[in-house]
């Protein structure tokens, strides 16, 4: 990836590959990045900051937006802003963990499939294809029915559901890299399969896979929020943004902010990630890889 863009940069007389990369990054990309960073910070530091200002209930139920409660109050009179920021920990944290697991496992299996023999490749590909025959939400419902919905189980469920997608993309990228001359040279040199996987192929598919990680993160956020919305995800008293929409759904008939705020939080996160991905370099290569 890096060697490719460097040589392209030299050929067109562009001074630095970094400048060229940042040149791609438009205004919308920066806006997306800022929103993602904001929610990441909220997930990490939000709860500790809020405990001092007091997020306990006791106020008016479903109060409208005011100076004291920037986003109104929820069905127990708790401050909605505090609830949304606490929810960030679950929505962003759980989804991020699950996405890392799914993409990591998918990429590793794909490297294994590409670098080792035909049998392993065929077995892995057919096996993971079978998992895609179950629609993602249905799969999630099944896992919750079987194993309940503790947070570790939700992470595992989302990871299992999105491994096949990550695998498919990583494999199509890895197979292309595997056919290149320098990989053949490495093999002739007598390098092990592990070396070829991690040192020769992985660095060259890492860029597109990071972009895919972002896209998969969006899917996982949507899936987990939907599960929580159905009451089958994160369980009370903990709440992610999906459960916040669920528990405040009664405010809908009054047009309350308490049901709109968590919905908009989800939308802002997923759209922001999409904006960032759209502005990453190498989009064309990724789309070719996805086919």
């Amino acid at each position, binding site marked *: 990836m890096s060697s490719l863009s460097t040589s392209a940069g030299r050929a067109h007389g562009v001074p630095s590959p970094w400048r060229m990369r940042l040149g791609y990054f438009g205004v919308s990309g920066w806006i997306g990045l800022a929103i993602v960073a904001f929610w990441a910070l909220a997930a990490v530091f939000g709860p500790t900051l809020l405990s001092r200002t007091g997020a306990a209930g006791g106020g008016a139920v479903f109060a409208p937006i005011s100076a004291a409660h920037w986003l109104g109050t929820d069905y127990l009179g708790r401050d909605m802003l505090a609830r949304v920021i606490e929810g960030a920990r679950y929505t962003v944290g759980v989804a991020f963990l699950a996405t890392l697991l799914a993409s990591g496992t998918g990429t590793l299996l794909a490297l294994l499939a590409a670098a080792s023999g035909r049998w392993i490749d065929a077995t892995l590909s057919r096996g993971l294809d079978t998992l895609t025959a179950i629609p993602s939400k249905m799969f999630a419902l099944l896992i919750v*029915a079987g194993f309940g919905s503790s947070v570790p189980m939700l992470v595992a469920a989302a990871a299992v559901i999105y491994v096949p997608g990550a695998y498919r993309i990583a494999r199509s990228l890895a197979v292309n890299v595997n056919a290149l001359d320098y990989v053949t040279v490495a093999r002739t040199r007598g390098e092990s399969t592990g070396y070829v996987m991690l040192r020769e192929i992985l660095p060259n598919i890492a860029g597109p896979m990071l972009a895919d990680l972002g896209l998969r993160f*969006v899917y996982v956020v949507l899936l987990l929020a*939907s599960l929580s919305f159905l009451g089958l995800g994160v369980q009370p008293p903990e709440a992610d943004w*999906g459960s916040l929409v669920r528990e405040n759904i009664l405010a809908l008939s009054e047009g309350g902010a308490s049901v709109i705020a968590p919905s908009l939080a989800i939308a802002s996160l997923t759209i922001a990630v999409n904006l960032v991905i759209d502005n990453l370099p190498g989009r064309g290569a990724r789309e070719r890889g996805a086919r």
Partner: protein
Amino acid sequence: MNALVLKLLAQRIALALLSVLAVSVIVFAITAVLPGDAAQEQLGQDATPEALAALRTQMGLDVPAPQRYLHWLGAMLRGDLGTSSTTQLPVAELIGSRLPNSLLLAAVTALFSVPIALTLGVASAVWRGSWFDRAASTSAVAVVSVPEFLVATLAVLVFAVQLRWLPALSYVSDIESLGQLLRAFAMPVLTLCCVIVAQMMRMSRAAVIDQLEAPYVEMVRLKGASPLRIVLAHALPNAVGPIANAVALSLSYLLGGVIIVETIFNYPGIAKLMVDGVSQRDMPLVQACAMLFCAGYLILVTTADIFGIVANPRLRHR
């Protein structure tokens, strides 16, 4: 139709049947084998070994898992879906009473969304790069990247709360006139349509653009054909396969969307039944609903593949 096409079709259908079989293994493993001993769970920690053994025999848990699976699969193929563990009613009866509602919802949604999506998709492909295309594509991306329940809550907020045109909840049982039917269906169909139209529009736009960028279209343009003729007489006939593929694939998103929509609008359909089954851990009900959904999904995906094969002229005239 020639031998090659028939062979490809047979392969697709065989693959779909195999997938259903594999799905049934996964469904059975997740719901009945991996979670552990259902008898133990029912009796609790301090049950006597004798009581446990008796319940296991009664539930058929004393036979090995593969045998139980075959028994379950055989019963399901014979149409015996078991008895719901919460209501004690036959699962087939429960599903039978809800399935028509869901199918009706899906049919009405398809009826509205397919023409709208195709018109939007073809129009934005023809005028690609224009303000119309940019507006349509941006809103499609926005709809696709937010959860279905957000679309549903916004629809309730606008049409039921602010404008007071429609009821927020739908109850299919008390419908007497066509007007009531339309009002009850309006919100769920509207929400599902938003999601499906966005998906289908994006895919059909890509399919038509693929054709419009082909060399033969340039040839037609050089020949002096009008833009309307280029699209209707030259590009569209070749895009029929990919578009039919896109329609079938988009309709398979219905299966996911319907889970959320039936729950939020309290619509008495099969997805609501399954969600209730999951929260009450009613395994026979969950298993039957899951198999039904997966079969429906595979039928749609296979149909998409079949359209792709049949509409490919290179395969047809070989």
